[in-house]
């Protein structure tokens, strides 16, 4: 296990290095640059453009720029935003709570998919099973961000015409400034929407796994031994059925973070996703790369954790 962890750590570091090299190159090769917005102002002199590029070291060849960046990054200096002048770490830390709140509430709500999956698997063919299946197919077919805008517009127009306020509009509201409950109320919809991804995936995977395990010989043996239903469910079915669910969890986290990009835009939450999109749009390279590395590191870490969880859940799995 120790060897496995060390090997995976080395692999993870290599992977991060590769991501940084590719990401750095792509971001710097993309058209545009911090000077673009000036380029189009006829009053600005070419000397200013040269000075701006010089200031940010953008006149060096990309490999040189990368090595300089890497050297600083290894010293935990990810540079400063061209726009706000704050260190990248400050910007990420400022945005992180919003994303964390959104993603964690999404993950937790999404976990409800596991009991749901077990519930419908145990009632295979029933109306509950069929309705959940219809719901999962419909839920997977509709883009969740679109659903989000639709629900917001519907509830807002309903509030305007009837005064019944089901959900608040995102963003600042003079009436509710500083009201934490209002803020939580604003987060209800994005949390549910982001949780849908996990909920749908978990319930489907859990259902098929539970059904699969239920037909295994050892479950029949357990039943014939006279074990009570609860023990069979907990020890024999759930534990075995959860193995692939853990993998799904590890893989889902990046998609949660990816999904939060869209929801942060729609629901005006200044989180990591928003930060990244704005940085890319404004060619704020240090922020764009900083966020890329941060999200990559978290994703790799979570995959690493899910591998370890794998071994803990399933004693048959031993890493060597």
């Amino acid at each position, binding site marked *: 296990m120790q060897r496995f962890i060390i090997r995976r750590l080395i692999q993870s570091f290599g992977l991060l290095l590769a991501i940084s090299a590719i990401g750095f190159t792509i971001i710097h090769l993309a058209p*545009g640059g911090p000077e673009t*917005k000036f380029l189009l*102002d006829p009053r600005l*002199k070419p000397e200013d453009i040269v000075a701006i590029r010089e200031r940010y070291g953008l006149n060096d060849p990309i490999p040189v720029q990368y090595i300089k960046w890497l050297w600083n990054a290894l010293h935990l200096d990810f540079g400063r935003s061209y726009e706000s*002048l704050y260190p990248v770490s400050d910007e990420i830390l400022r945005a992180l709570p919003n994303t964390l709140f959104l993603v964690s509430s999404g993950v937790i709500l999404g976990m409800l998919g596991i009991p749901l999956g077990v519930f419908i698997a145990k009632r295979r063919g029933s109306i509950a099973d069929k309705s959940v299946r219809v719901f999962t197919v419909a839920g997977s077919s509709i883009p969740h961000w679109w659903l989000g805008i639709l629900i917001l517009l519907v509830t807002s127009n309903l509030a305007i015409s009837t005064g019944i306020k089901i959900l608040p509009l995102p963003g600042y509201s003079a009436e509710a400034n500083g009201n934490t409950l209002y803020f939580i109320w604003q987060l209800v919809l994005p949390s549910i929407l982001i949780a849908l991804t996990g909920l749908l995936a978990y319930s489907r995977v859990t259902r098929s796994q539970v059904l699969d395990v239920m037909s295994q010989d050892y479950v029949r043996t357990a039943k014939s031994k006279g074990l009570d239903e609860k023990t069979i469910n907990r020890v024999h079915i759930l534990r075995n059925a959860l193995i692939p669910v853990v993998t799904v969890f590890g893989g889902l986290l990046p998609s949660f973070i990816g999904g939060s990009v869209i929801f942060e835009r729609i629901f005006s939450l200044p989180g990591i996703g928003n930060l990244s999109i704005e940085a890319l749009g404004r060619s704020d390279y240090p922020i764009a790369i900083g966020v890329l590395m941060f999200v990559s590191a978290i994703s790799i870490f979570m995959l690493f954790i899910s591998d370890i969880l794998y071994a803990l859940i399933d004693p048959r799995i031993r890493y060597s």
Partner: protein
Amino acid sequence: MERFFRSVLPTLVLMLLAMGLLLTACGDSTPTTATQPTTTTAAAVPTGVAAIPTAALNSGGSATTAAAAAATTAAAVATTAASPTTAAATATIAATTAAAAATTASTTAATIAAAAGTDTPKKGGSITIVSTNEAKTMHPYNCTDVYCNSYISRVYAGAMTKRDPKTLEVVGAAAKSWTVDKDAKIITYTLKDGIKWSDGKPITSDDYLWTYQQAIKKENAWPRYAQNIADPAKPDQNGAIGYEAPNPQTVVVKMNTLTFDIVERADFITPLPRHIWEGKDWLDPTKNSEIDSPSVASGPWKLKEWVKGKSWTVVRNDASTIWPVPYLDQITQATVENSSIAFQKLKSGEADAIVASYGFTTQDVAEAEKLSNVSVYKWISAFASWSEMAFNFRHTYFKDAKLRSAMNWVIDRKALSDKVYYGLAVPMYADVAPSSDKFDGNAVEKYGYDPEKAKQILKDAGYTVKDGKLMDPTGAPLPKLKYAYSTGEPTGPKIAAIAQQEFKDLGIELDLVGTDFNALLKTITTEPFDWDIAQLGWSAGINPEGFGDVWKTIPNLNFGAWVNDDVNKLYSATQREFDNAKRKEIMSKIQSIESRDGPYIYLNANTSYAGINKRVGGVTPTPLGIGFDSRAYSYMTDWYIKG
């Protein structure tokens, strides 16, 4: 069958009911009132005197991306979809319609038509502005876009001059007077008496000089250094070469060149409070909290709170001396990235104001006009953004003015305005936007939509059409043209599709190449210049005379490498001409050449517009806007809550 009646039918009925409810809620269920006809009045407007040449490129859409400066224009339109009671209570500038402005811009303009029963402005109240974009910094010497400019200019005043919104003359802001020594190229500004920071300390020339000295330090990396500071060794370079403060009320600026707009060119320092800033870090907001949370203000507003990414709140600066003390207690600018949601906030009354460059889309204007709680204001801005199709003159076929003229005659500017801009645009025929006092409707060729005329022009010039393809006079077919446009704006693909259809009628085939704006720029400004026509836009500067700089900058601004010596000489002549009437004559000549033998198919200039809650009074559309953004004439100091 029984099962059908027992289960399926009720389900269907329920679904229909749910859909009905959904559609009802989606639709505009707000009570509406009939729109009142637009009041139209015309009056002569004195022409602007001098200004900074400014123009900024945009992707050809409706968004305005102009740089800083003040204004020169003629027309403003105010339409309010108001109920009779509230309309009577609103003071508006009524003016010429967009179309009228296009034809008689030099003589049309605005008068203040204060309606009967005007509210008396009184202090108090708060409003919320909603915006799809947020500023990233409050540092006046690191800000590079209109969003931070609009934050900064509400808190920091200090520009020596501004433009009068009615006469458009350059008038004093922080300066009470100035003198220009044309021979020595020296401007001497005298500061107003008793101007103060919000903490009561006087604003003196020392603040200006100290700020100047910090800004020009190399290590302080001012992005606009070369724009404002000249090298005395280069006699043609515009900019300052000396800055002095001989006494607390006098600022003396020595410029390197003499241009007609020297008074505004020399006015480039926004002073920072030396007594607060001295000894603090200039660039690091983690070491200098004054950068993002200034404790003292010189403008009409003081920063109360900035929750980054969410909202930005300012309160009235009761000690404001350069600008009037505002009526409102507080203004909050809330960031909502999605424009549909932003508009929804205006509808619901959660937000009081939204403007075009802050995410109010043309599609939403018609709906906003029907709302009972919102007034829609429209005006033609001195900074109107306008769009064009630029030719690449590196290809010999575009050197034939006849071909370009024929292509001009098949572009239906009126249809573009109606279909693409929802009627919020006016036709353009040269570099000068119809809003400018330099616009000369008689000098330009006013291209209408006339495909037959276009075909006749081509026929007369020796062009033929074979198998639906245009052949040049030598009999060689015109290649398929690469039409580059930006997909960043919703208008981009629409105009491109219309152009493709109309040019095909002449036998000219287009290959539409839509990319994002940065990629488009790269394509049109770098080798191998693999494009034929590029669809782009500019934001008009206050002085159209400044546009001559664009033609001198190949390929970064003059993408198509259009060279016309006459136009270049005429533009150069405007810079040395201090007489506005004479400059206007020169500009007429330029427009005449450009519209007939020009580099572009000029399309439309956009109308500016804003949606404001009817509870807000004092909103006055002028060519300088409604007192809202970075180039505002009032910074909302004249806004108040009615009733």
